[in-house]
């Protein structure tokens, strides 16, 4: 239990630092794709976590990102929306006999079809919200939509990569 919590804290720090030190400085096609990998930490939170804790952790994570990006409230609102959506997506995707206690939302555990629905929906929700709040207007709707979707695809690929790269310790902990 302590090990798991430590794992989450380490993942939080690693993802935030990776985001602000490396990924924010990627310039893919002149800013067409801006991946936000830090939400991988939120996607990896335990399935059975109580709703209030999920929302609170989402809010705090977003706020930390807001400090780095000097955008009060922007990442925070996107993360809170995503975590609220996560409650429903998890309920929607739950197996007939419910989730096993302590099961983690990973590709290895849940299978690829489950994961692409789960992560795909949530990443898309987060990115659409973020990009439209960031732009703050609805003209150039299709361009922003395109940017959000392309960035979401990029983030999803990075999430898969991050999972396979850390899958060694995953198997040990199980």
């Amino acid at each position, binding site marked *: 239990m302590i090990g798991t919590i430590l794992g989450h804290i380490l993942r939080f720090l690693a993802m935030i*630092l990776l985001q*602000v*030190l490396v990924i*924010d400085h990627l*310039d893919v096609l*002149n*800013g067409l794709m*801006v991946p936000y990998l830090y939400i991988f930490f939120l996607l990896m939170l335990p399935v059975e976590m109580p*709703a*209030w804790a999920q*929302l*609170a952790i*989402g*809010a705090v994570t*977003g*706020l930390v990102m*807001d*400090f*780095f*990006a*000097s*955008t*009060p*409230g*922007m990442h*925070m*609102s996107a993360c*809170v*929306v995503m*975590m*609220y959506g996560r*409650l429903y997506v998890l309920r929607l995707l739950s197996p007939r006999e419910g989730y096993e206690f302590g099961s983690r939302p990973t590709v290895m555990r849940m299978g690829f079809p489950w994961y692409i629905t789960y992560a795909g929906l949530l990443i898309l929700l987060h990115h659409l919200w973020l990009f439209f*709040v*960031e*732009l*703050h207007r609805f003209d150039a709707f299709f361009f922003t939509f395109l940017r959000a979707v392309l960035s979401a695809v990029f983030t999803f690929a990075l999430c898969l990569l991050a999972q396979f790269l850390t899958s060694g310790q995953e198997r040990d902990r199980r």
Partner: protein
Amino acid sequence: MRDLFRFLYRIRSTLMFLGWLILSFILLYNGNEHHRAHAISSSNAVVGTIYGWRKDITDYANLKEVNKALADENADWRNRHISTYTPVEGLFARIQDTIHRQEYRVITAKVVNSTWHKPKNQLTLDKGTRAGVHGDMGVIGPDGIVGVVRDASTNFAAVISVLSPEIKTSVQIRRTGHFGLLFWDTNDPLTSSVIDIAKHARVAVGDTVETRGGDGIFPAGIPVGVVESVEDAPGSNYHDITVRLSEDMTRSGFVYVVDDLHRAERDTLQQANER
């Protein structure tokens, strides 16, 4: 009554969600006015330090370019220095000049972090209130304007880049003196727009755009860019001008924070007038 409580209990996660959402929207909409929300920025000491680490490593990659830019700028100043001019006539001698007084002071700062590919861009500088940097000061680079300080902590400052629709800088066409506002709506880090220049003004491609000054943020005559295209949409009274920015915002080396020494005096006078 019991039913009400039971209902509220059942939708508790939705209520909590709304609570967080409202909180984040308060931050989002008061971010630029409210002082405490203002402090959510990269001028935060921890954030600035982390960006500083990154800069310490990446600095080495462009030392050559930064050195060349600094040397070029040094040469430029040297060309303007009094010792490079000889008096035309022996009759004139330079004496203590009491006509000019110093109006601006510049503080050098290093850019520790910058973005240019987002809808709103920002920079973080490694100088803060200890070095005399405060909010609403202009930031200029060797080639042109860079942004406006949004917020400063003891050792760091967060700057709103000119590549952000949050700031509108008062600029003018150097040749004709017509003035308008620099407003970034091109979504391209190399260009920006100038709005509010009336159609009767004759603006040509290639005209230099410079700051107008007088706003207490930028001195007058700081280069902004060169007019790249002038379009006249029918039905509008204003030109649609695109400017190629003279400062390369995708490059970040050293910048200068402009401190207007007479700002307090002017601000108090203007406030007294407004009342």
